């Protein structure tokens, strides 16, 4: 039964879950999308603990409102839309309160070196620092540009999928991606010099 279910597409699995309330189908979909959603939300919001809550809420909403999904749309588009809306709500909530994060101090960075990494420690440390700088720069980009840049350049979605998730035209999506990249390019000038 599991193997048969694992061979199904996302749309077939959601239909199975809708029609027969098959919890295994639901679990499979959770496994398939939890990490991509986590990556997307983390790059958009920046806080790992909050991201876990957002992705959990996304799956719960998916479970409660499974019948609101219509089969003419892609399932990935639908679940990304739920996650994006919850992430935007979190950003709006943050605007009203100031959060002082203990982990947000660039001067006090802890660098973990994994043994399985066949990189010299100094080179690995550089990579970690570089990733953090890129992430911080990404968080400085306007949210409307940041969203589409992450979906396109990190998640690898097509323009049509991004247009469906964000409810924008393809032209607007391309324009915003271009502007987001331009802002990032200005913020990350010093990295190119290295």
């Amino acid at each position, binding site marked *: 039964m599991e193997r048969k279910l694992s061979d199904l597409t996302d749309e077939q699995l959601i239909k199975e879950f809708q029609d027969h309330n098959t919890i295994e189908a639901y*679990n499979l979909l*959770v*496994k398939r999308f*939890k*990490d991509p959603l*986590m*990556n997307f939300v*983390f*790059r958009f919001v920046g806080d*790992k603990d*909050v*991201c*876990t*809550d*957002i*992705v*959990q*809420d996304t*799956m*719960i*909403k998916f*479970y*409660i409102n499974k019948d609101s999904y219509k089969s003419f749309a892609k399932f990935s588009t639908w679940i990304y839309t739920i996650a994006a*809306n*919850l992430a935007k*709500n*979190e950003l*709006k*909530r943050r605007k009203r309160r100031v959060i002082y994060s203990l982990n947000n101090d660039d001067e006090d960075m802890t660098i973990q070196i994994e043994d399985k990494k066949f990189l010299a420690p100094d080179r690995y440390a550089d990579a970690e620092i570089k*990733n953090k700088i*890129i*992430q911080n720069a*990404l968080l400085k980009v306007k949210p409307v540009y940041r969203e589409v*840049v*992450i979906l396109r*350049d*990190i998640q690898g979605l097509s323009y049509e999928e991004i247009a469906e998730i964000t409810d924008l035209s393809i032209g607007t999506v391309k*324009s915003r991606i*271009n*502007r987001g*990249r*331009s802002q*990032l*390019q200005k913020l*990350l000038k010093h*990295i*190119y010099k290295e």
Partner: protein
Amino acid sequence: MGQKDYNISNEESGNITELLGNLPKVSTPDNFEYKLMLKIQNEDFNLKTEPAVKKNIVLRWAPAAALAFSAVVVFFIYSDQQSDLNTGIDYLFENTAKVTETQKAPIQLKEHVASENSKSLNSEIDKKSATVASNETAAKSSYTVTLQPNDVVVKKKAAFPFDQSQSVDVDNALLDGTGQAARNSQMRLVGHGPAAEYFDFRGFALPTEQDREVLENMKARMDSIWKAKIENSKQK
């Protein structure tokens, strides 16, 4: 001219895409699915990330609601003040009962003369009849005696004594050159007291009292001129 240039070269765009694509993938914690299934089994569907849309709506309309509320309060306060003002205006004048009483018996109430010895309304009315013919006392100010609804007699100085029976139709008086119509009719120029009966209309110029000495001098001159004239005629 001050516009931001969002066009970046393909090379720069490729660099950004490469940088972003090389970022490490973030994954969920190990107990993510366990916690999720636990929530579903317990039917704990309280979302931690609830949208605060309702509050925004309240906050968004709070200034407009406050303005509308203050306008309503000001309107009601102003309307209350207006009603107070109207009742205050009423108090400035005597009540209708007093006014009609004054108008109905103008002679009785208006022409009586204030007297220090008058103690009752009846005695004042009696004195009124005795002093109608007196020109001296008529020059004094007049008072109105009113009977208030609570049976209290109030004597007040008449602020605007106006006797319609002693008024005159100015248009007719001017058109009638002799002034006979005004003299024969009941109408008189506005005045008070018995002197008003003998008052002839001589235009709207205000009569001023002349100094006695000036009058005597003028009379003396006129007499001397008259005498000189007579002497001249005799000589001729």
